[in-house]
């Protein structure tokens, strides 16, 4: 079955829109009720007795539903005993008791002095729970009041992450919007990225010299987006290699990456109409060990003397070892990573370096397809948003601190709140 690309995109859009609708509905349904049950009175101080180290009980013990979970946690908070002090504390600690569905209370946890909250993760939605705390000293124990019975509740939506959702949604929509717009034939300008312009030339050079192209997709597995980015670029690069009839070899340090890379290169060779030229031997697994892999790749570089080396993906300390060895055999090197700590080494030892975001944009840029380029424009909307928020926020907080303007304080706090989503 062949599915038109646009039909598929439309299906995706419909699906996502319906998901969003469901989300909005759910928000309305789960109107929030706060289930905090406050203890009415706190128990009285016990009569003093000689020889005992008397301590006061904790006060304001509250048990409430933990917000935004699947109904699996209850949050307890209290004001510690007044005898619980940093230095020479009389309180040695607290014991937390819990009774389930009105049963006998059992000890749940022993807590050090200074604690004022506890998250009970061993609760179930169908049960009711009551809690109390014992404060103990060397030879004296005092109980707090017992909280009212409470059950944890399931929330369908995490409202703490509301802003995160809205902003991510905004940028996603911007990206999808420009993808669609580009598809309809709108011309989009994309600036030149030097490292990517050089790819054709670099591969051509390898053909001329009759030497192979070496592609290193970083040392992380497929669970790192940088590896995915490297593979999408591999798709374009191997297409060029197939067209130019160059050689590629690709040692990898993860088995999954090996499988995915073979699939990718095979596709490119098919698309170039040269399936016969493809062989599984282009991609080989070496070892998962970071420096074992580096040792093998270094050896390979000096023995095979590739004309062109691609170092794209997640790199750690090995970045410079690889780049310097590649440089020593006179290869043209195109590198890129999203790990800021390794970028300077690439800048120093490689001919072209894709910095952070450019790595992720590369495959879209190389494809030259309008739809893919559209996504780059969408990204820029995100940058625009970030820049305006920075300007607005900095202005607000500067005015607020300099002249103590109330409204600017509010703007500042609001922005901090919006962008503090975790």
């Amino acid at each position, binding site marked *: 079955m062949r599915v038109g690309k646009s039909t598929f995109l439309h299906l995706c859009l419909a699906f996502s829109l319906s998901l969003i609708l469901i989300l909005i509905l759910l928000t309305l349904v789960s109107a929030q009720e706060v289930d905090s049950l406050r203890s009415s009175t706190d128990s009285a101080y016990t009569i003093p007795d000689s020889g005992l180290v008397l301590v006061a009980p904790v006060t304001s013990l509250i048990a409430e539903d933990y917000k935004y979970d699947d109904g699996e946690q209850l949050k307890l908070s209290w004001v510690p005993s007044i005898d619980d002090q940093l230095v020479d504390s009389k309180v040695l600690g607290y014991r937390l008791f819990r009774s389930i569905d009105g049963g006998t209370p059992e000890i749940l946890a022993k807590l050090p002095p200074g604690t004022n909250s506890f998250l009970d993760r061993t609760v179930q939605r169908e049960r009711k729970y009551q809690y109390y705390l014992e404060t103990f000293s060397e030879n004296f124990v005092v109980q707090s009041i017992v909280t009212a019975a409470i059950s944890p509740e399931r929330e369908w939506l995490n409202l703490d992450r509301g802003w995160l959702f809205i902003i991510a949604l905004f940028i996603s929509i911007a990206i999808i919007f420009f993808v669609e717009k580009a598809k309809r034939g709108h011309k989009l300008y994309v*600036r030149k990225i030097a490292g990517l312009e050089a790819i054709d030339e670099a591969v051509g050079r390898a053909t001329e010299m009759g030497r192979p192209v070496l592609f290193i997709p970083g040392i992380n597995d497929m669970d790192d987006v940088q590896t995915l980015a490297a593979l999408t670029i591999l798709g374009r690069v191997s297409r060029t290699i197939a067209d130019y009839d160059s050689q590629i070899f690709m040692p990898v340090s993860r088995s999954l990456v090996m499988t995915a890379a073979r699939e990718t290169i095979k596709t490119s060779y098919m698309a170039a109409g040269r399936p016969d030229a493809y062989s599984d031997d282009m991609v080989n697994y070496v070892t998962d060990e970071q420096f074992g892999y580096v040792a093998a790749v270094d050896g390979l570089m000096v023995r095979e003397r590739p004309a062109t080396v691609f170092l794209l993906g997640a790199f750690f300390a090995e970045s410079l070892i690889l780049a310097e060895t590649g440089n020593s055999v006179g290869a043209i090197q195109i590198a890129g990573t999203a790990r800021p700590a390794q970028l300077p080494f690439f800048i120093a030892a490689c001919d072209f370096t894709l910095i952070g*975001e450019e790595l992720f944009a590369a495959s879209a840029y190389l494809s030259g397809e309008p739809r893919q380029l559209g996504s780059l424009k969408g990204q820029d909307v995100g940058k625009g948003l970030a820049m305006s928020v920075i300007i607005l926020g900095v202005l607000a907080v500067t005015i607020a601190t300099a002249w103590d303007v109330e409204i600017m304080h509010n703007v500042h706090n609001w*922005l901090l709140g919006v962008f503090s989503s975790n």
Partner: protein
Amino acid sequence: MEHVALWVAAFLTLGIISFLYKDNPWYKLCEAIFVGISAGYWFIVLFWDNIVGKFWVGVFPPKELNDVGELVNSVEPDYWLIVGAVLGVLMLMRLIPNIGWISRWPLAFIIGCTSGLYLINYFSSNMMRQVQGTIMPLLGMNYELSTYDIIGNIIIVIGTFTGLIYFYFSKEHKGWFGRAAKVGIWTIMITFGASFGYTVMSRMSLLIGRVDFLFGDWLGLIN
């Protein structure tokens, strides 16, 4: 035994260092040992951790005696893990030529997983939190900051802002926009210089550690 261990370690250490001069049989031997042994090492570690530790124990939890003396599962078995194993087996379908394409399913699953997981993760930690961190006062009367800090803050805000301009793809870097992008790339270059200078320090200590091993532990020429 200790003599053997020392000599083996020294032999391997020198073999790797010899690569600096040029590729040679000694290095090749060390490389071959390294690759073979470490590939086996990681497979074993992954096997015991993931297949046995996570999958097998998850699906068939160890039994224990309960109060009444019956043998029961210590934890509830998690049969969903079988989905993972099935996907893993599908991966192996590559080995059978005719249905090799089935192995794309687990691959597609993994790509979906990675993109889905990181989309929000990266977004909240890389974009949201960093933007929030950049919102800070530049100057102010009721604000205790030294001149250097104020200059520092101004540089952080301008640097971040222009750095973002540098990454703009859809606008030509011309006119004021181009000049701002230029400032952006300068900031980024200073960043790279700083992290380079900063890491040189710790790189040296690794080599010093090796030299200490060779001349101290092994040859005993230094104490």
